[in-house]
């Protein structure tokens, strides 16, 4: 089937079998191998990408269902020499060991911080109607869809905190 995906801001035409997952379309058809295949069943989060700005598991979606949709992968976030705040914070805080889960962790964190910005509550938010704080408990709950077999969680959480703080500061400066 003929489809067009807007991947990292660029329109990409594809001819795919209906069985091709969004993850395989990115990796095998568009050679964007930053998104990783871990479990391929939505349990590990290594394939996390942004679909129209929201984080999803690319392994549990069919490419043909996303004709016309906007996809952001880790390649679209930043590149060597021009890292995004999250990418830089992961490097700074050693938020990984083997690195296989890292693109998924970063894309998930990107989507998660946007959700927090919209005021979405989580399972650990004490009050559903309050604007949630970015506590360590909130980060851990909101990132539970991303596993790290090397168990680099302390570095991952710290990186997310640092990047969020930095982006928050940037926003305040821009507002002033």
């Amino acid at each position, binding site marked *: 089937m003929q489809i067009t995906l807007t991947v990292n801001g660029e329109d990409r035409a594809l001819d795919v079998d209906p069985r091709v997952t969004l993850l395989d379309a990115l990796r095998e058809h568009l050679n964007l191998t930053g998104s990783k295949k871990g479990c391929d069943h*939505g349990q590990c989060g290594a394939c996390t990408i942004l679909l129209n700005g*929201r984080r999803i598991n690319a392994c549990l*979606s*069919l490419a043909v269902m996303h004709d016309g949709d906007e996809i952001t992968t880790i390649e679209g976030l930043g590149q060597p020499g021009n890292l995004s705040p999250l990418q830089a914070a992961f490097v700074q805080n050693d938020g990984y060991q083997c690195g296989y889960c890292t693109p998924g962790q970063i894309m998930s964190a990107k*989507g998660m911080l946007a959700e927090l910005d919209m005021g*979405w509550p989580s399972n650990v938010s004490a009050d559903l109607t309050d604007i949630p704080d970015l506590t360590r408990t909130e980060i851990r709950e909101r*990132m*539970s869809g991303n596993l790290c077999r090397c168990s680099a969680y302390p570095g991952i959480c710290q990186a997310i905190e640092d990047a969020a703080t930095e982006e928050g500061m940037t926003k305040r400066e821009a507002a002033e």
Partner: protein
Amino acid sequence: MKPFDYVRASDAAEAHDTAGRIIAGGTNLIDLMKHQIETPSKLVDVTRLDMHEIAPSDDGLRIGALVSNSDLAAHDTVRRDYPVLSRALLSGATGQLRNKATTGGNLMQRTRCPYFYDTAQPCNKRQPGSGCPAMAGVNRILAVLGTSDQCIATHPSDMAVAMRALDARIEVARAGGGTETLPMDDFYVLPGDDPSVETVMQPGDLITAVHLPSAPTGHQTYRKVRDRSSYAFALVSVAAVVDTDGGKITEAALAFGGLAPRPWRDTDVEQVLLGETPSDALFDKAADVLLADAKGHGGNDFKIPLVRRTLKAVLADLTGVTR
């Protein structure tokens, strides 16, 4: 995955395809197709249909079938007036999955029984008549109420348990025309002799919305007990709406997850509580009624005392009884 034809429905008529299997978020169905537990020959993608709205209805709220689990959990009215639903949704799955999973799809998700998932094993739900190794096997997560001698699978949803406590009704557009709005106990079918039949949905039928009645006055809570604190299915969960006035219980709606093949509600349990003074002894009496017909299969025996303790804790919290 087995090969299949793919159709993107652009209107309701195309969605009512009796030869097709409906796909929306796909978070459960695609997984099942990868395992070849589900092998549809045709997928009908309904995600472009206009069913994404949450809107006030005459007496409550109408939730479009394509509303994502995250949008529903974060919706201002749901957070304020139906917190049990928001809490249940947020306790389920992960941020990524909730962004994709839909209201209709959540209701239609299949059991996570390990034997249903293992195609090398017999399973009466996958292949009626082939047997149920779960009965004498690994059944820690499986059901203790509403089962049959053919199947002890549980319905895995958290969302649906909260909806059951809220007296939600499911709007189904029938393939042959017409729309029905079904109470949840009329929508889900208990396993009986054929556990492959889980709902009254027929080929070509489409869930179009879920209706919530006006917000209840009582306090609401969702308590979920599971093996780890995030991203795990319920061993036992309780969705509760309870109110007291003048020291007596005046409202009680209780639904249970992890116990049965459908979100479980037993109004006899609520009758025990209504009009009475809340106490530990009263809560035990309510649990006795809930569990009168409970049957464990070894590995899941623990759920029977666990749900008693969970129910009592929830009732104590909501009525202010000190334990």
